[in-house]
């Protein structure tokens, strides 16, 4: 990716640019037309492409390749993990533990299982730092708890959850744990065996790979129902002729992440510290939402509430007048409702803090000059919005 085109991009948690290596690797694969499941000689090579992709993903997660299953992305992986586990219990639907700050692909799937299939659910609430507590998790366990599904890192705040400790507690009660690691994989090291997770979702486009491909790590394939029945691909767990181009993309993205993520992480944490210092020394009144230290939050994410402004209005001025792309969790919905960030609301922020919040996320293509320019533009536009509202400092 030409970095010139990424000067103003501060929304890496929504999606990352595709890396040059990934893009180049995918181009020749489009000509490999043979069906990998066919017995002919063209297909042999294509099967090798899939095997290599599975190996590379396994390498990134500290897993064995037979535990890696390709999906169309993170949402499919989350849906599969939850429904696939719970469908084993349809005759005796039990209890699920999740959190109130999950991605919609988890929250809506759990809601479906509760409303349509008779399961019950406990939603763990995050504290003001954006973390759930292991003690709360332990207290939520019931005799019939059949699944815990908890995100690794939150997409809005970057807050990292205590997954290893949760897995330990869950293992003592034989409760399977699914982890939505879509925002975590490619940013921090993951070792599924050390963590003790049973299922882990990831998505290529969050770590410089292509859209439309992700994966579900499954520790024990007998513990989960297949997602798609048919031709027997993906060890008969997710049938359908494979997308070699996408698999190559995620394969190279995983390989690059394995080699470079420690460097990327260090680079991002330096930028985060730089941005925090510049903002703290600026004239605008703001609060960082959620934990910001290295151990407790992702290095590339800052969620900021700015007093006296609407995040939505700031985001538009940043884009239209300076070319900076950021994200907001709250917006007008229609005449009767508004969409407030469910994550920040669950953390206990006031409505004004939630409406004044923006999310800034960056990555390996961001540099110090961009951070400085970004903060300059942010200060200018916050002051302009305060002037519009008549609440600028005198």
């Amino acid at each position, binding site marked *: 990716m030409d970095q010139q085109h990424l000067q103003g991009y501060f929304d890496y948690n929504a999606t990352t640019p595709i890396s040059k290596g990934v893009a180049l690797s995918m181009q020749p694969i489009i000509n490999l037309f043979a069906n990998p499941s066919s017995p002919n000689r063209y297909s042999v090579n294509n099967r090798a492409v899939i095997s290599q992709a599975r190996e590379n993903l396994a390498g990134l997660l500290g897993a064995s390749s037979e535990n890696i299953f390709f999906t169309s992305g993170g949402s499919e992986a989350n849906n599969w993990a939850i429904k696939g586990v719970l469908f084993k219990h349809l005759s005796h639907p039990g209890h699920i533990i999740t959190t109130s700050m999950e991605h919609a692909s988890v929250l809506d799937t759990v809601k479906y299982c509760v409303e349509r299939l008779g399961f019950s659910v406990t939603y763990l609430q995050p504290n003001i730092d954006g973390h759930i507590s292991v003690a709360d998790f332990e207290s939520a366990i019931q005799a019939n708890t059949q699944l815990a599904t908890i995100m690794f890192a939150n997409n809005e705040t970057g807050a990292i959850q205590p997954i290893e400790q949760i897995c330990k507690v869950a293992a003592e009660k034989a409760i399977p744990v699914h982890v939505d690691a879509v925002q975590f994989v490619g940013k921090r090291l993951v070792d599924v065996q050390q963590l003790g997770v049973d299922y882990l979702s990831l998505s290529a486009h969050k770590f410089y790979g292509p859209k439309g491909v992700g994966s579900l790590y499954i520790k024990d394939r007998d513990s989960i129902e297949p997602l798609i029945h048919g031709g027997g691909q993906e060890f008969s767990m997710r049938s359908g002729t494979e997308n070699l181009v996408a698999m190559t993309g995620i394969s190279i993205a995983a390989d690059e992440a394995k080699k470079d993520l420690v460097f990327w992480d260090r680079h991002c944490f330096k930028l985060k510290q730089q941005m925090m210092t510049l903002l703290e020394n600026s004239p605008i009144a703001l609060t960082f939402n959620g934990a910001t230290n290295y151990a407790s939050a992702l290095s590339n994410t800052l969620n900021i509430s700015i007093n006296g402004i609407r995040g*939505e209005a700031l985001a538009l001025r940043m884009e239209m007048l300076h070319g900076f792309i950021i994200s907001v969790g709250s917006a007008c919905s229609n005449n009767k409702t508004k969409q407030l960030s469910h994550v920040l609301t669950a953390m206990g922020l006031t409505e004004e803090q939630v409406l004044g919040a923006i999310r800034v996320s960056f990555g390996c293509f961001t540099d110090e000059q961009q951070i400085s320019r970004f903060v300059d533009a942010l200060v200018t536009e916050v002051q302009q919005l305060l*002037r519009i509202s008549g609440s600028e400092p005198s």
Partner: protein
Amino acid sequence: MYNDIIIDNFSHPEFVGDLESADHQFEIGNPVCGDRIQMQVSLDGDSILDSRFRAWGCATSVAAANVFCRSIIGKSFAEVSARQTAEISAMLGELEPSQQHCVNILNELHRELSLAVSLEEG
């Protein structure tokens, strides 16, 4: 997505501020989304001489306040009061469903102006 009318009026709102001597001022707000607009108007006989606003809210509501000011300055009060809903809606261009509440804001600004001037005359 925002249309060009919204982007132009939100990015460069030329009618932000306070009038030195306003003949009328009123405030409207949307209790659901929390948007607030304070409007000031000065008159010269039957005509609207000048108008300024302050706004806290989404981009579309700020733009609506600016569009309103520009649309009334130099016009007669009767002319502004005679505007129909369709004409007022068209002033903001094509809006996404999430931005439609700003048509209500614009309608309300017209209503409040009529009310303020009528009360004065009454």
